[in-house]
């Protein structure tokens, strides 16, 4: 059920400016909330639970979070991430540094709804509702002193909770210097790519940058300021591991392979030219819209054949 040690986990984080109690503040202020959350410094156990169809995915991690980065410990490994870098001491130690001059786009589609003061884990906190039009997209319980999000619930398009991220054993710390990179791990530098294979905008998500991917593939990273995903376009010759226990996701456009985890969802499909893999922390209704705007699974793909064999 859980995929501890296999998944790398950097969820979207949030924080809040102290004393923001005026209801219906604008998206500009939500950005401040999120930016300040990245600055929060704390240690905690983070439990992430996601509901995908009939599958519940849960992970439980020890997290050390500081300005812009975090260290996550799992059973047998740890991962440090931040500022476009990631160093992981898992089964295969690895380091990645992404070179980009671009930043996450401004938040346009979300606004802060009601803000109330609450007590959470004996701490003073703000309960912030994040609205996407009339839909409540998230509820955040934000620690007043540290700005950390103690509890985040994300809702699907039908207003049901599909992900809960909660901190326990929460220990806020004062600022201390960011740990240096681990020198024992070799680091791979990932360059920017000029490709324009995929559109600049997908279902309200803006493309941030495109990078060279493994084995001649390319990675397009999209964000709406709150959630984000990457689409990897990969040669058809390449085998993509990690979908052995996948589920099938069927939309109007065709059949996709899907591996849901507590923190994110991974999707794989192929059109006549390429394999595609999408990885991101996006809500299910956004996922459907995004897939609808991406190249559809090819008619000649084995998936289609399989599907037609079953259903005519």
């Amino acid at each position, binding site marked *: 059920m859980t995929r501890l040690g296999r998944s790398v986990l950097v969820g979207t984080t949030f924080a809040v400016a102290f004393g923001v109690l005026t209801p219906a503040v604008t998206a500009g202020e939500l950005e401040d909330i999120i930016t300040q959350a990245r600055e929060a410094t704390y240690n905690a156990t983070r439990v992430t639970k996601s509901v995908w169809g*009939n599958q*519940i995915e849960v992970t439980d991690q020890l997290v050390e979070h500081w300005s812009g980065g975090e260290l996550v410990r799992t059973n047998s490994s740890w991962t440090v991430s931040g500022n476009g870098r990631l160093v992981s001491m898992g089964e295969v130690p690895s380091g990645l540094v992404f070179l980009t001059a671009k930043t996450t786009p401004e938040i346009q589609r979300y606004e802060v709804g009601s803000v109330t003061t609450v007590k959470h884990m004996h701490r003073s906190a703000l309960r912030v509702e994040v609205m996407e039009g009339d839909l409540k997209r998230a509820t955040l319980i934000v620690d007043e002193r540290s700005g950390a999000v103690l509890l985040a619930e994300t809702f*699907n398009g039908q207003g049901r909770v599909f992900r809960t991220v909660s901190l326990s054993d929460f220990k806020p710390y004062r600022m*201390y210097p960011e740990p240096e990179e681990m020198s024992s791990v070799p680091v791979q530098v990932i360059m920017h790519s000029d490709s324009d294979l995929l559109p600049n905008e997908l279902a309200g998500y803006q493309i941030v940058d495109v990078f060279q991917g493994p084995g001649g593939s390319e990675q397009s990273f999209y964000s709406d300021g709150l959630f984000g995903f*990457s689409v*990897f376009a990969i040669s058809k010759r390449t*085998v993509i*591991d990690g979908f052995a226990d996948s589920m099938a996701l069927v939309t109007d456009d065709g059949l996709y392979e899907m591996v849901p985890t507590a923190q994110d969802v991974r999707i794989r499909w192929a059109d006549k030219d390429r394999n595609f893999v999408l990885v991101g922390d996006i809500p299910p209704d956004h996922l459907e819209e995004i897939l609808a705007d991406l190249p559809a699974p090819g008619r000649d793909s084995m998936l289609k054949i399989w599907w037609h064999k079953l259903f005519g």
Partner: protein
Amino acid sequence: MARMNTYQAQLSILLSCYLDGVLTDEELNEVVHVLDNDLEAIAEFHKLKEARRAVRLMPMLEIPSHLLPRTHLDEELSAFLDGELSTQETPIVSAHLESCGECRMVLADLDRSRIAIRALPGVESPVFLDVHRETTTATRRRIPAVVALATGVAAVVIAFTVGPFASGGEQPTISIADLNARHAAVASVPAAVQISNTAP
């Protein structure tokens, strides 16, 4: 370590406490002042920080399962599914589920029936049944579950064990873990902070 006077010894302790964020405001000011001005203190601080990190980076060990009691969860599981657990209960239940396969299976069963009940008026239900029956006979493979996506709208999700992409041969291979790590790294770029775009 060379013999230090009392003040230096005290200061040295404060450096360690600074790493743990447990200083009073007064002590914090003192440490910050010293770290701004004293090269030896900075070197000492970095060494302490390395020692602290070395211990913190050691992995949490898995407890042998026979040491844990074999009691199981009950009504907590339904509350868990419905998101009705208190914030105190959630970590306990999650921790139990991590170590207990039996409860995970009960949870999956509960969730299946819960979703089936919730999906009753929807259009997917008859499709489920047909899909399930047909795939079972057509492929002779056990299909673990048939469900609607959480949003439900126009999507149906079927679990299957062998993906149609799976194939052998000499082809190059990319693992989803690698792709996931790349996404995580890129997603950790903060808004409005730029990283140098020149190669080292």
